[in-house]
């Protein structure tokens, strides 16, 4: 299965999840469907070879999902005591141990402090940016050249995210509702 087919399958999954999230009357179901959308995006980013974006997406998604589920469940959480607490502690310790093992394997491959791998690889993109930024763009600040010229799409995406966040804030936090209280959603 090549990457295009996979991307189409995941995108269809994402669109179906988003539609169900919008149309379902139950808030908790909608939040869970939103979680499947986020998982789809995480997998898509992983297959498109952007693990950094995938990690960010996963972290933000988990935090948002927890907050949203907590906000949609009316009653208070039941307290976990006794054996279940012990079980949860064991699971947490196991996950932490696995993460520590992974770090032990990963960190030695990073190279010395202050000597990143991409500085040694001659064909790394950052080498090209540093060498050609002034000639290509005329900007003395190489960082500005990278974020606004070489990687303009990245900045466009960031600006879009900011715009979407503000639209969400304006829509959700407006002081007075647009509809009258007796008016119901269709």
């Amino acid at each position, binding site marked *: 299965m090549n990457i295009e087919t996979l991307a189409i399958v995941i995108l269809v999954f994402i669109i179906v999840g988003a539609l169900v999230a919008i149309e379902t009357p139950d808030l908790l179901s909608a939040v869970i469907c939103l979680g499947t959308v986020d998982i789809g995006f995480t997998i898509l980013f992983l297959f498109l070879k952007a693990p950094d974006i995938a990690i960010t997406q996963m972290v933000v998604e988990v935090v948002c999902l927890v907050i949203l589920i907590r906000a949609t469940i009316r009653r208070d959480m039941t307290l976990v005591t006794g054996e279940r607490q012990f079980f949860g502690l064991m699971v947490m310790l196991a996950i932490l141990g696995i993460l520590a093992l992974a770090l032990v394997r990963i960190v030695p491959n990073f190279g010395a402090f202050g000597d990143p791998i991409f500085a040694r690889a001659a064909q790394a993109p950052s080498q090209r940016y540093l060498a050609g930024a002034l000639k290509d763009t*005329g900007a003395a600040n190489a960082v500005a050249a990278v974020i606004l010229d070489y990687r303009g799409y990245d900045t466009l995406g960031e600006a879009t995210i900011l715009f979407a*966040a503000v639209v969400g804030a304006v829509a959700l936090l407006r002081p007075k509702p647009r509809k009258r209280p007796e008016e119901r959603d269709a």
Partner: protein
Amino acid sequence: MSDATIKRPAVRGADQPGLSIIVRTVTRWVKSFIFLFGIYIVCFGHLTPGGGFSGGVILSCTFILLMLAFGRERALRQLPVPRAAMLDSVGALGFLAVATIGLFASGVFFVNWLAVPAAGVLQRLCVLLGVQPFHLLSAGTLPLYNLWIALKVATSLFLVFTLLAMLRVNYRGEKE
């Protein structure tokens, strides 16, 4: 004559909303300089560390400081929410417009269509006029992008802060 009868000197604005008289006085002095520093960070983003994002944050911090020191009404008099929302959209559209002009100018979206050509009469003319690296007028479209992003980031942060500050939730969980 007891202490209670001594009339305390009237402090200007002591009964106004906001923080203490010290914070308000210092804010009155430094707010213009903070705004100016933000403009500098934005305009010189292609020459020195900084740029649209960081400069925009500094610009919005001016208004947030105004709101913290003098209360909500004072900051909203300077920048009402509808105008901030409009400037936010203008910043986003301006950023897109500069990128789209590149599409029409040379067929590539996001191309640096104002860049100084590598050689020729135009290049020598640009050097004569001072449009060359390490000068304020350089780097083609990068300063334009910085300006639009700064407008967008400044108004966005101010909007989110203002809306969160204005949100009041009463006990039954309904927005007032």
